[in-house]
């Protein structure tokens, strides 16, 4: 089996590692409705930024990948016990990061595939997108920087987010993602952060895993 999709939108957020949610809110405030902005998290703000221009419709799909997801909401929610905050509980639930963006923009979707995991997360997210029958399948992901959870290796140490849109249209594509079944073993695929950096640098990526060979190439 060979599966191939063409890349029609790429955006990456790699802010200063010290950027705070307040800083991000100020930097990106023009991109969101004022009423939505107030409650958005750092990850939500970055994801929203990268999905600007993705042009998703109600019959399209989005694969969302994050290992640690809504770290700060999780930390603050836990810190609030025994008085549990409904807002922080709600926000902390995967896929709260992407839902903030989609609800803020009232962007309905056919299928949302929120993924967790770590070592093969990129590979599995791309495979999920390649198996999508939707005309446009976005793959978005990212992390926000933790505080006390970072001290225990339960959070990312720098914020980032990315989004790309995959379609079957070759014309005008920026690049392509390809998977071909092969007796290829389980190689080391990119981590979520390496993948985001690769997209930002328009770097080609190849690896093996999941019963085949993977490649991401640019035009």
């Amino acid at each position, binding site marked *: 089996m060979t599966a191939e999709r063409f890349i029609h939108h790429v955006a990456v957020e790699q802010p200063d590692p010290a950027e705070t949610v307040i800083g991000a809110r100020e930097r990106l405030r023009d991109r969101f409705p004022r009423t939505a902005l107030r409650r958005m998290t750092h990850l939500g703000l970055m994801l929203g930024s990268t999905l600007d221009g993705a042009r998703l419709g109600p019959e399209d799909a989005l694969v969302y990948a994050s290992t640690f997801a809504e770290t700060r909401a999780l930390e603050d929610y836990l810190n609030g016990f025994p008085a549990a905050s409904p807002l922080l509980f709600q926000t902390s639930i995967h896929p709260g990061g992407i839902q903030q963006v989609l609800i803020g923009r009232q962007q309905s979707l056919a299928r949302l595939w929120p993924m*967790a995991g770590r070592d093969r997360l990129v590979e599995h997210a791309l495979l999920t997108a390649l198996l999508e029958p939707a005309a446009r399948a976005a793959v978005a992901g990212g992390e926000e920087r933790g505080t006390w959870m970072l001290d225990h290796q339960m959070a990312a140490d720098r914020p980032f987010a990315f989004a790309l849109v995959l379609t079957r249209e070759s014309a005008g594509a920026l690049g392509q993602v390809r998977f071909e079944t092969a007796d290829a073993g389980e190689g080391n695929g990119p981590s979520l952060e390496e993948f985001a950096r690769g997209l930002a640098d328009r770097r080609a990526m190849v690896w093996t895993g999941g019963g085949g060979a993977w490649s991401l190439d640019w035009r």
Partner: protein
Amino acid sequence: MNAPAETCSLGIEACDCLTPFGDADATAAALLAGARALELRPVLGRDGGDLVPLALIGSMDETLPARWLGEVRRLAGALPPGPWGLAHAPVVVTSSNFGVGSLYAFTRDRDPRHIAHGTPYAAVEAIRRELGWGPQVHVFSHACVTAHLGLAQASRLVQAGLAERVLVFSFDFVSPFVAGGFHSLKILNGEMPAPYAQRETGSIGLGDGAAFAVISKAPSPTRLSAHAFHNEMFHFTGNQPDGAGFRACPEAIAAVTKGRRVWIKGHGTGTLEAGRLEAEAVASVFPGAPLVSWKGSLGHTLGSCGLVELAITLAALRRGRIPGTVGGRTPSFADNIALQPFDPGAFDGAVLSSNAFGGAHAALLLDTSGA
């Protein structure tokens, strides 16, 4: 325009679950007898708080190693032999909670040993190591429609020829983290849930649950026939008031039922607004089809509910009797709510649906003609 259902014809080689009643067969038997696993217990376990309906396997308080790990091991005893986690036999793990109870325990006790299970990755890795799975373990987490995503992904992997068999494995165990959260939303309160009942106050219960299914092209008496999804993105906890979101998946499934006579296992947590919208949508799309919910007994097993309830459905079909809506009562939101058990012989299909935060909807169609 909502997306159409994806059709398939795939076998369910094996399927079982674990609830406070035991395995799928014991759970189906308890539901048929009208038993309720929910009991009023302190919302924060040993930390106290209001009494709320919880259906627990043991105590909610976290242990070392994590309390769910032993239960997952117990359920895994019923798994068909692998090898699981390889490219041709991948695992799809679905959960909403993963090991979040360990995070709560860590913040309470500051015992760093809890951290080993505190993140989704760490929890899945603990199971992967424990059960000897290979690296091909896909992980999905979409609140209460999570298990449907796992089943749909498994279907796609088999249909595409990428896998011969796929193990879908779900687990969600209640902790003060999640009970406290639903309590703060005021829908986990001192009342027992009464799914689809018209009453003054809505309420849900929460329950422990784990389940698995092995999906392949092999023959089986009950087959997965279609999957449908829709995401409203109207509001985090609310739905489009006209019920359009609740109609999307039933309509997509109805378009591929091809004259099948179906009954419906609904989501039915016991909240008022969503219960009414769901019951009305099902009644309008599948007029006369019985609608049941089992969350009035088992509580809401969150991300695993779709797979737990599939396992119970298959066990009930084997018993030749489908449990009614335990805890339900009249007046209901629609005339088609089945409060009592019924005979599945008059039907050749079942629609299993789940809903989640963010206006997420999922449904699957089971071909039960061979059951």
